[in-house]
């Protein structure tokens, strides 16, 4: 273990950190930008896919599916094909894609073009969440600049390959981060997940083969193409190759994003990078992965950022977040807040999610206010059992994960709310202060 300081040499996504003018084409070219694209066009699609497979890159949107394998699902000889870029970053606690767009937009575009060439996609659509309005406008400007420089459009860099890139703004719907909901939204529909199969690789956007990749995933491609898949993989461990941009927020001294090698870094390292727990308080709990994922406690601080190790601890690295909670935090309140979020963001398509998140939310409000009976609290597990694994898409399933894990880990705190008439945690923090 160790490696508390990210080694500049070991950086991929943020390797140009501090270079001036990176949001302009000139600035990006000065640090070597678009060499990866030129290299990719020489390599040809098969060689790129091979490098990506060799890199061990796994999707950074949360599901961690191997990117090269995902690309391999496209049926042979079926055109047109599309690339959809998932910039709908909406997972509570996640803001890494925003950073990659704001600070390295050309790196993302280069990655998009490399992927589009590898997939022989005619169009790439960057679906960016509605709340990222300023970032959308930045991306639009970057794409316009790239069109003028013949990096996008017909005959890219003089090759036979052409690809149109469209920046497409969402309008406030967490569910559009789910890849099939994103495609429906991109088709001008209500962003609701689709029935699978068929999978997007076979029938995606407009019924054509489509790959949906996350911003961070694609931002790695210029490095992988220029430095090689093996070099990328070596930055992490065999089971968790490469680096990852983690978002640390909540009760820490210096919240922010940190690019660290996978597998060789622990939660404690991340916490230290963010300056530790704020105000000298004690650590109570953390939520890795984003709003969907299960809570972990102090006993998990030395778990490495490795897919399997975190899964064994009972949670997931998800979309690369880490929300830190200090000793004053009421776990019932945090649970209620997340449950409310899912109730608000449920698309309404399936019964267990639409009604279950509402049921959960009603119950958690009563519990937080100390109004719920023991019988009501006991029904929480039933409600969650009726949702988890029963919903149309993961949104409804995950709406139960944090609250159920918190209930298990902090059962006494939940029980103390029953019939209390107020929040006992807040009351005791108030008394202590």
């Amino acid at each position, binding site marked *: 273990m160790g490696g508390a300081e990210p080694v500049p040499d070991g950086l991929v996504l943020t390797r140009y950190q501090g270079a001036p003018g990176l949001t302009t084409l000139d600035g990006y070219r000065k640090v070597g930008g678009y060499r990866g694209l030129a290299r990719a066009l020489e390599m040809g699609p098969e060689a790129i896919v091979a490098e990506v497979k060799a890199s061990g890159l796994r999707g950074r949107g949360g599901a961690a599916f191997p990117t090269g394998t995902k690309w391999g699902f496209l049926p042979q000889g079926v055109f*047109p094909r599309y690339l959809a870029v998932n910039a709908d*970053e*909406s*997972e*509570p*606690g*996640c*803001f890494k*894609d*925003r950073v990659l767009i704001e600070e390295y937009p050309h790196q993302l575009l280069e990655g998009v073009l490399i992927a589009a060439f590898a997939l022989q996609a005619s*169009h790439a659509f960057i679906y960016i*969440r*509605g*709340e*990222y*309005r*300023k970032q959308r*406008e930045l991306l639009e400007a970057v794409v316009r600049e790239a069109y003028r420089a013949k990096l996008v459009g017909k005959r890219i860099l003089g090759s036979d390959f052409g690809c*149109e890139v*469209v920046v*497409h*703004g*969402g*309008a*406030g*719907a*967490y569910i559009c981060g789910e890849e099939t909901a994103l495609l429906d*939204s*991109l*088709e*001008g*529909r*209500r*962003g609701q997940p689709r029935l699978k199969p068929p999978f997007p690789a076979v029938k995606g956007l*407009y019924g054509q083969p489509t790959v949906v990749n996350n911003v961070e995933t694609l931002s790695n491609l210029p490095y992988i193409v220029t430095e090689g898949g093996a070099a990328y993989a070596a930055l992490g461990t065999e089971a968790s190759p490469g680096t990852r941009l983690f*978002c*640390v*927020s*909540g*009760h820490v001294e210096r*919240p*922010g*994003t940190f690019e660290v090698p996978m597998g060789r870094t622990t939660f404690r390292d991340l916490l230290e990078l963010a300056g530790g727990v704020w105000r000298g308080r004690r650590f109570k709990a953390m*939520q890795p992965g984003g*709003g969907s994922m299960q809570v972990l406690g102090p006993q998990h601080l030395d778990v490495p950022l490795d897919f399997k190790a975190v899964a064994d601890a009972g949670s997931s690295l998800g979309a690369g*977040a880490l*929300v830190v*909670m200090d000793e004053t*935090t009421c776990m019932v*309140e*945090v649970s209620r*807040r*997340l449950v*409310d*979020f899912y109730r*608000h*963001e449920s*698309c309404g398509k399936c019964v267990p999610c639409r009604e279950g998140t509402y049921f959960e939310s009603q119950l958690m409000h009563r519990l937080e206010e100390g109004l719920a009976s023991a019988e009501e609290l006991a029904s929480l597990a039933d409600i969650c059992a009726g949702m988890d694994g029963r919903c149309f898409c993961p949104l409804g399933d995950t709406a139960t994960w944090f609250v159920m894990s918190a209930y298990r880990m902090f059962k006494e705190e939940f029980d103390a709310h029953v019939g209390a008439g107020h929040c006992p945690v807040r009351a005791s923090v108030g008394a202590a202060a």
Partner: protein
Amino acid sequence: MAESEVEASSPALASGTLERLRELRSRYPVARSAVLPALWVVQDELGYLPPWAEEVVAGELGLLPGDVAAVASFYSMYFSRQAGRHFVQVCQNVSCALRGADELLAGLREWLQVDEEGASPDGSFTVEGTVECLGACGGGPMMQVDRYSYEDLNLDSARAILERIREDGGGGAGA
């Protein structure tokens, strides 16, 4: 609205907006894909999406008005009513809440004297009640005013930002 009123006022979009809709339509292999961008353009002009504008968008994209309304009502950032001149969102999700978002929101509401719909009496601001995580967890508590984010706020700094925006009319550079 009575039919005669509709005919009398005959609301319409600016011709530039219509041109923009047609340009958006041409970007996509299938015209329907332009619905979300088209609604953004219309909302930027009108401040909200009245039914007549949904009908205009439907007509431009070869859809039925119901198709457009079904889409518009799904996304929380499209407004069916006229909002204030500036739209204020205070993220209340966990990361921001851990750092005082509830107190910030309550303080701003009280200071702006907003009503149940979240509108301030002078029409300058509408404060949105429920906000999705705004993706600025590293700078919580934060607020977004129109298209710009302001991070690491406390009630004083947030009030100062809103005062400046009210006076300037513009959104400033953001954080």
